[in-house]
């Protein structure tokens, strides 16, 4: 396979542009929700610029919005647990990104669901690189611009509930989990996690149920792995 086929590189870039633009829009809802939940525009932007991982960002603001400062630890822990998969993506992207510490540093911050999905789905190394960097840079720019637009919009809107933005937050998590529910095991885990959360919500302080769910899932995954070690993971464009 020719590693510099311009046709493959063009196709990879086109896919990256498409994915990045679609997902960037999502940043508007993050920005608006964060500000309306009580985060300052500055805090909201730091999350998009520095954390830059949609699921972790939504988790942090969602848990602090409902549980306050008391749920801060759970919020940080949940954001971190949701960020583990980025570390696994980084392992896979590492040989594709290549050498040079500055390039690897930038690549690390930009290694998320979408850039990894496009950057590992191409038929050649050059196309993988092109796909990764196109998606990564465009998504980072678009996500942050969209977050700012949403944050400024949120400042004007005022109350979360009047505009149904509390429902939008829940729908956002549903949208994030949806593309991962294609096989029986994750579907079963999602349903189980939902049930356990509903049972624990009235009994425990805000933010604690999700930590219990995380601990149970880790235990379950390790037990399941011992019973039937299997297949490598795959990324989904979400």
């Amino acid at each position, binding site marked *: 396979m020719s590693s510099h086929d311009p046709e493959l590189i063009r196709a990879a870039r086109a896919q990256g542009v498409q994915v990045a633009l679609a*997902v960037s829009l*999502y940043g508007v*809802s993050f920005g608006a929700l964060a500000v309306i939940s*009580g*985060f300052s525009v500055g805090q909201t932007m730091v*999350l998009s610029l*520095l954390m830059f991982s949609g*699921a*972790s960002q*939504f988790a942090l603001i969602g*848990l602090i919005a*409902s549980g306050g*400062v008391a749920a*801060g630890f759970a919020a940080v822990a949940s954001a971190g647990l*949701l960020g*583990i*998969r*980025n*570390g*696994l993506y*980084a392992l896979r*992207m*590492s040989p594709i990104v290549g050498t040079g510490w500055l390039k690897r*540093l930038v690549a690390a*911050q930009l*290694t998320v669901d979408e850039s990894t999905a496009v950057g590992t789905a191409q038929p050649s190394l050059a196309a993988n690189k092109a796909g990764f960097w196109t998606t990564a840079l465009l998504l980072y720019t678009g996500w942050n611009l969209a977050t700012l637009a949403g944050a400024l919009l949120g400042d004007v809107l005022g109350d979360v*509930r009047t*505009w149904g*933005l*509390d429902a*939008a937050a*829940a*729908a956002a*998590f*549903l949208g994030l989990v949806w593309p*991962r*529910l294609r096989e029986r095991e*994750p579907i079963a885990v999602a*349903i*189980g*996690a*939902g049930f356990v959360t*509903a049972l624990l*919500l*009235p*009994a425990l302080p805000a933010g604690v149920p*999700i930590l219990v*769910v*995380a601990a*149970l*899932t880790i235990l379950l*995954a*390790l037990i*399941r*792995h011992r019973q039937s*070690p*299997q*297949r*490598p*993971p795959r990324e989904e464009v979400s």
Partner: protein
Amino acid sequence: MDPVWGFVIAGSLVVLVLKLAGYLIPQRLVEGPALSRVAGLVTVALLASLVVSQTIGGDDGVMLDSRVPAVAAAGVMLWLRTPFIVVIAGAALIAALLRFFLGIP
């Protein structure tokens, strides 16, 4: 200082360090099917847990209100392959309309 800043910075650094770790640690040391499986299932479980707590969570544990039909509608929209941004806006709109016109909390 506002303690929320502390959580924002701490959370951001944790997430950033995890990304960096993947580029710094030699692949053969960590990548194995067990870790992949744990990370994959934990992601699904935490997101599912957040769907539930954000849909029915309230000050005293559980509160059922307009969020429930709105999120159910979001599920139907996702099933029909509606773009995410439309799903989110749609869920907000449904909850807002139920509150404004029907007075459902």
